[in-house]
Every structure is written in C-alpha cells, then in structure tokens.
C-alpha cells in the first residue's frame, strides 16, 4: 500500500500547477460536499479557458459562496457542463446566465443522472452507455438512439476529467475518504473520473490506516492531494441558507 502522505500545506499549493484549458469538476450538491476552498484557490490562481463540470453554476442561493459563477465573472471559463444553466425557480436569475446568453461562455446541459453516470463511466472504463433519460426531448434531437427490448434509449459518452475538486469529512494521509451524510453526492464518482483528485478535508487528517477498510467511501487510490480546511474565517464552511426575498 502506498504509504506516503498526500497532505499538502495550502489550497494555493494544491492548485498551483493546474494549466489553462483543463477540465475540472467540482463536487457538491447545494452546500454539502462543495469544495469551496479549492474553488476560491482556483479563482486566485487564475487558470483560463477552463471547462468546468458541476451540478449547477451556483449563485441561486444566499449567502453567495465560491462557485462556477465567480470563475465565469473572473474570465476563467470557456465551457460549463452541468444540470442547471438556469435556476429551478425561473424567477431566480443565476449570475452565470448572462454570460451564457451572450455567448461569452459555452454550456452543455446534461440531466443530473446522466451527468453522474457519465462521470462514473469515465472512472470505470465504460466509454459509452444507453439511458432512457431525455429520450423524446430537445436534448435528444439529432442524437443516436437505440431500441432495446422495445424501448428507446439515448447513447451517452463517458466524461473524463483532468482534475476533480471534492470535499470530505474524514481522511487518512493516504486519501481514504469518508463523507458525512449528503456530503457524498457527486464526490466519489468525480474522484474516479479524474487524472488528479484534490480533496479538502473537514476533520484533522488521520494517520494511514485509521479508517476501517469496510468503512472507506472513496479508496485512497483515487485521491492525489489532500488539504486540511482551517477553521473560519480562514476556511470556508457550509452555512445556514438564508431564504432569498422574492
């Protein structure tokens, strides 16, 4: 077992070598499991022409946290692959939307389950698969479908990543991870899909082998760099959501 610690000293150091043009996924669903500190570090680092992958571009909720929208506003983003380019409530306007509508940033809108499965497939060496999702919709227009046992399915391709930014509750120095509750979400599948996975960790990183092998959610072989999240205000943590005024 690789026994060298993957802990690096700062978020800045963890993202320092990320080149322009990279494809980077951000875990998280609403606040839980979102790598706010790594996203902020990427904003400070300034890499450009990025393709970003996440459930949403962010900014629908208050308070505003580091999100794809911030990187878009900072001129770092060429394309976004996500399940929401607009908010669920049409009256909420995402910061991202005007950049998308003006054509400044490209987007690929993907159903959430298809997004998760395309990431899982990338990690698991499945180059393409069929799904019933989105058949008969605008998203399937002009695309390849196939009849299997009398039902129509849409062909979808694996989505490979250069980097995955994820967040977990617990880790040992080898990157064996545990997530707390709905922190888990996209994080484990993104970790498998990336050439380099960087994880921010809530609790003090434990010595190698501190986590029972039956209790590991993401094996350390999928995690390449770890950063300890410092307490507030230096570190960014999930907060209570404030209802937006309507």
């Amino acid at each position, binding site marked *: 077992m690789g026994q060298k610690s993957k802990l690096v000293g700062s978020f800045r150091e963890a993202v320092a070598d990320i080149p322009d043009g990279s494809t980077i996924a951000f875990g998280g669903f609403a606040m*839980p499991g979102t790598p706010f500190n790594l996203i902020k570090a990427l904003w400070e680092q300034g890499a450009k022409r990025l393709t970003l992958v996440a459930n949403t571009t962010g900014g629908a909720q208050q308070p505003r946290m580091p999100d794809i929208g911030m990187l878009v506003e900072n001129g770092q983003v060429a394309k976004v692959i996500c399940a929401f380019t607009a908010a669920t409530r049409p009256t909420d306007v995402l910061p991202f939307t005007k950049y998308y509508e003006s054509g400044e940033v490209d987007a690929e*809108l993907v159903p959430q389950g298809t997004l998760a499965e395309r990431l899982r497939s990338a990690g698991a060496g499945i180059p393409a698969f069929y799904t*019933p999702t989105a058949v*008969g919709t605008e*998203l399937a227009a002009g695309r390849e479908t196939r009849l299997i046992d009398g039902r129509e399915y849409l062909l979808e391709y694996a989505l490979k990543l250069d980097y995955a930014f994820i967040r977990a509750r617990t880790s040992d120095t080898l990157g064996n991870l545990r997530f707390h509750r*709905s922190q*888990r*979400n996209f994080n484990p*599948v993104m970790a498998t899909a990336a050439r380099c996975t960087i994880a921010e960790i809530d609790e003090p990183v434990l010595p190698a082998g501190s986590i029972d092998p039956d209790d590991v959610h993401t094996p350390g072989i999928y995690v390449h760099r770890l950063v300890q999240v410092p307490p507030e205000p230096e570190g960014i943590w999930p907060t209570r959501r404030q209802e937006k005024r309507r």
Partner: protein
Amino acid sequence: MSESKSKGLNRQQMADRVAREFQDGWIVNLGVGIPTMCSNTDIGDRDITYHSENGVIGYGPVAPAGQEDLNLVNAGGQNVTLNPGAAMVHHADSFGVIRGGHIDATVMGAYQVSMTGDFANWKLKGQKGGGIGGAMDLAACAKRVFIILEHVTRDGSPRLVEACDLPVTARGVVTLVMTNYGLFEPTGTGFRLREIAPGLTVEEIRAVTGGTLTVADGLRQIPTA
C-alpha cells in the same frame, strides 16, 4: 408554482391530496416546491421511504431551527432529518435507484401537462438552456409520475393542454395531475376529472382545460379538512 390568489385548493391541500395516493411500502421522490410539502401530510401508518437525488434514502421532516445538520439536505437544499433505517449513497448510485425503476412515485411541479401525458418543467419559452436537475431521469424512470401545478397561468390560460408548446421533460409518462381545481388523469384525448375541489364546477374547469374533459362516475369532492 404561482403565488397569485387563485380558486380552489391551496398549496398544502394539493400536496395533501397527492400524498394520500402513496401506498404502504412505496419509495417516493419529491421535487422542489409544492411536492416537498407532501411529506408534511399525515397518511396514517403507511410506511413511505423518501428518496432525494443527492443520495439520501429515508429522509424525514425539515430539521427544526438550530438543529440542522448543514451537511444534510434534500433535493431542494433544505436541511432535513433522517428516519430510522436511512442510508446514504453517492450520486451515481442514487440515480441507479431512479433509473433502475426502484422509485414507486415521483412528484414534480410543471409549467404544462398534455393530454397524452407529456409534461414540461425545465425550460421557458425562448430561454437559452434551462434547469433540468434530476427531472428528466425521474420522469423517464419512476413507476408513476405525479404532477402538481396551478390549473391556469397568471393570464388565465390552461396548463392542462392538448400538446405542450414548451420543451418537454418526458413524453407519455404522467399518470396523475393535481391542480388547485381538482385531480386529473391524462386520457390521450383530454383529461379525466377524478375529484373536484370545493367551490368549483365541472363547467368552470372544462372552460380552462385542454382536450376533452371527462368526469369520473360519482365524482367526489376533495376533502380539505
């Protein structure tokens, strides 16, 4: 969806009526908005497992203020509680639950439902992009798709239509439509009114419903107690 004053049932009453469709042992996914309110309804000793797209299987009511776990949310981002026997899975496994046909019913909001069971809830007219989330997966794969929506738009046009003129989320999947005017089923050539809201007449409803409105034998009024 709208907050305009409207006839018939209020939001919680719509959610209550839909919740009473849930059968013992079902696994149910509740969408953002009114559908979320289904979990507030008392449906006796029926055991329902609530599933959320982000991998929460078996969640309970929203957490009381001050007792939230900030790392536990439902699909709407609310800090919920867990029922005994809950389990967490990752996103790909969570949509395995959905796509694999393990969800007995999904309840969603929508802009429009058609008489052939199509519905539209992710993109407005002329909009670039939209907000799909898990709606297309749920719509295509849940055993039953229940839609809750206001019966008419703010300008009084029907939302139960012959054909959706908005981009659809899925085709031919809706089994039940709950509006503030009543409980309906798409029939292919129109809608069948199963139950009617207090204070409304069939003729009033027919005037603002697409396709042919048929009425169930012994039409019942929806209890709102």
